[in-house]
């Protein structure tokens, strides 16, 4: 448990360093700062939900790693649909809470655009990371339940920060 925990912690410090690169923007606009934990958390959750489903399907023997596999495709589509359902709520919520708690506000359209663009990109990345991680675990004959879920959750956390950074640079 402990060695894995320390490796994951080191990976997460990488995403902390990315946050530090745009600390000035985050401190200038509270709604962007409010977006940070929820974007990280949701990205990690999208990955871990998909990973748990693929691991189970894999244990049950109902999964094949083919592009036209119904189960793979259906779960991938659901992940993107889930992201596109929750990220608009996240965007409007972060904007509203930012206004309520005071501080300089960005227009609601900007915060919404940042949240939905980040969410859409993250869901595609989460699908790619989860499929690759499950496939690698399968090839190396590791139990996907033990390996894939923590790896995918933490990698998606990091991607959450990186994607938010890139999207904020482009849109704000």
């Amino acid at each position: 448990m402990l060695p894995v925990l320390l490796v994951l912690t080191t990976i997460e410090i990488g995403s902390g360093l990315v946050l530090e690169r745009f600390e000035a923007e985050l401190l200038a606009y509270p709604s962007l700062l409010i977006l940070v934990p929820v974007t990280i958390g949701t990205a990690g959750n999208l990955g871990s939900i998909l990973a748990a489903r693929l691991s189970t399907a894999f244990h049950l023997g109902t999964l094949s790693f083919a592009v036209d596999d119904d189960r793979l495709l259906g779960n991938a589509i659901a992940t993107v649909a889930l992201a596109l359902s929750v990220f608009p709520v996240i965007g409007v919520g972060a904007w509203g809470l930012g206004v309520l708690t005071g501080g300089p506000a960005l227009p609601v359209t900007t915060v919404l655009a940042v949240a939905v663009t980040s969410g859409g990109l993250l869901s595609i990345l989460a699908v790619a990371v989860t499929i690759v991680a499950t496939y690698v675990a399968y090839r190396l004959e590791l139990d996907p339940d033990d390996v894939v879920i923590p790896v995918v959750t933490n990698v998606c956390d990091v991607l959450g920060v990186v994607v938010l950074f890139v999207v904020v640079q482009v849109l704000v």
Partner: protein
Amino acid sequence: MTVREVAARAYREGLPALSASLVGGLLAGVVLGGMRTELTAIDGLLVLVPALLATRGNVYGSLGARIATALHQGLLEPRLREADDRLLRAVAAAIANGLLASAFAAVVATAALAWLVRPAAGLPMLVAVAVISGLLSGLALTTTVVLFVFAGFRRGYNPDTLVGPLVTTAGDVFGIAALLIAARLVIWGGG
């Protein structure tokens, strides 16, 4: 099942957990948004945020999963009064792992910031914030996980499906709230 059926089912089953963690994430964001003074006062504090939040999820998610398995196997009774050594040992080990990973995060963050020639508050300050917040959030999360999983199990819910959303939601909120308290304590103690 067709692609459409698989997708519809995965969507329906994923939405509740995602919605619960959305609420927790936004609440954590509000606390983080209110921490601008502390983030400015302690250089490098923001670098710790993702690592400390992930540690909560990794450590207490694993504790919750262990408790859920022990309940399923009948090794553990869902009553605090009968809390046995096994439960206490698992809790103590989780808190120790959490504290160690928090202190480790502060050390790695300080080293990385020094290497990148970025401003940092210094090792003692960051370690103090990480360890104090690790202890506070560890105590709050352990209590929440044990009480909710026990109560859920007694009412017939599957503890396995409770643990994930519970830990991600409570972990975000308690993790950031503990970080705020720890940062204020350290600023107050050091200044």
